[in-house]
C-alpha cells in the first residue's frame, strides 16, 4: 500500500487560514490503513480546525467527508454537487488523490493533508517500512522475494557491498542488509546457485528515469 504520514496541523492551518468554507476529504484506502488520512483522522483534523478558527474568532464552516478512493473518477464524482460550496479542500489522500482531485476540480484549491512517503507494508501497528520503489521491472523472482532496489541503500543488483557488516547496512546499524537477507533466503530455498548468476545491467527506463510513466492495457479498455 501507499504509506503516508500526517502533516503537522500548523502547516495545514497555514494553508487554509484565509478560507471560509473548508472540506476535509479523507480516503478509505491506503491512508486509512496507515492511520494518516481515513475517516478517523478526518474527524480529528476537522475538530482541531474548528476549535482553531473559533478561538481566532473566525466563522469558518468545516465539513467532513471520506471517499472510498480519491484515485478513481467515479468516487471523486460523489462530491461533484457540493464541491463548489467550498473555497478550500484539504485532501488526506496520498499525492495521487490530491492531484486527481486538483485535476477534476480545477477551480477549487486542493491542499495536501498528509506527506506521502513510500510503497510499504505494516510491520506492526505504528510501524510501516518500504518494500517497493515501483521500478516497473520486477526482479523479485531471482532475488528470493527480497527487493534490492527498495531495500538496499545503494540499489545494487549484485551485492552485498563492502558496507555490509554482520547482516546490517553501513548507513544504519538497525537496517538489515538487503543482500544478506537475499543470500539467507536463497540458502533457505536451496537456490544459492541463483546468487552466483550475475545480474545484468537493469533497464531503468521503466523507472522514473524514463519520466512520468503510464500503463496502457488495451485488453481491458472499454
Amino acid at each position: 500500500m501507499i504509506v503516508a504520514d500526517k502533516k503537522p496541523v500548523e502547516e495545514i492551518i497555514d494553508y487554509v487560514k484565509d478560507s471560509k468554507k473548508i472540506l476535509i476529504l479523507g480516503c478509505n484506502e491506503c491512508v486509512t490503513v496507515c492511520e494518516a488520512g481515513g475517516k478517523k483522522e478526518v474527524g480529528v483534523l476537522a475538530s482541531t480546525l474548528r476549535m482553531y478558527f473559533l478561538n481566532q474568532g473566525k466563522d469558518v464552516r468545516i465539513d467532513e467527508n471520506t471517499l472510498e478512493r480519491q484515485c478513481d473518477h467515479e468516487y471523486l464524482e460523489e462530491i461533484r454537487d457540493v464541491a463548489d460550496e467550498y473555497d478550500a479542500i484539504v485532501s488526506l489522500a496520498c499525492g495521487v488523490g490530491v492531484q486527481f482531485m486538483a485535476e477534476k476540480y480545477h477551480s477549487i484549491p486542493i491542499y495536501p493533508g498528509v506527506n506521502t512517503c513510500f510503497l510499504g507494508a505494516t510491520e506492526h501497528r505504528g510501524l510501516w517500512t518500504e518494500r517497493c520503489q515501483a521500478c516497473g521491472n520486477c526482479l523479485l523472482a531471482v532475488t528470493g522475494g527480497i527487493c534490492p532496489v527498495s531495500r538496499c541503500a545503494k540499489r545494487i543488483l549484485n551485492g552485498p557491498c563492502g558496507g555490509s557488516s554482520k547482516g546490517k547496512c553501513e548507513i544504519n546499524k538497525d537496517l538489515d542488509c538487503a543482500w544478506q537477507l537475499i543470500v539467507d533466503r536463497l540458502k533457505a530455498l536451496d537456490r544459492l546457485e541463483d546468487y552466483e548468476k550475475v545480474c545484468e545491467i537493469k533497464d531503468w527506463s521503466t523507472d522514473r528515469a524514463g519520466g512520468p510513466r503510464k500503463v496502457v492495457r488495451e485488453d481491458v479498455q472499454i
Partner: protein
Amino acid sequence: MRLTYPTSIKIVRVPCTGKVDVIHMLRAFEKGADGVCIVGCMEGDCHFKSGNFRARKRVEQVQKLLNTVGIGGDRVQMYNLSSGEGPLFAKYANEIHEKIMELGPNPIKLKKSKAA
C-alpha cells in the same frame, strides 16, 4: 465513605480507557468542556492489557493539538487509580477541578457565546 467531589464534574463511563479516542476528547472541548480528565486503571493492571497505555498516548496527542489551537494542553490530564481507591478519586477530582478553575473557562465557549 460518603466522599464528595465537585459537582461540575460529569462522569462518562467507558468499558476501558482504551476505548477513549482522540476525537472523543476533542469533541468534548469543541462542545465547550473546560477540561477533560481520563481516569484509567493502574499501569500494568489493565484488564485488556494495554488500554490505559493507549489512553495515555492519546491524551498526549490531544494535549499537543490543544496547545496548537491555543486552548491549552493543560486542560486534559490522565490519572491512574484502582477501582477500590475512592478517596484518591475524590482527591484527583478536586485537583483537576482546582486546576481548571485556575485556567479559567474554555476560550471556545466564551467565543461561541459572544458570537451567539
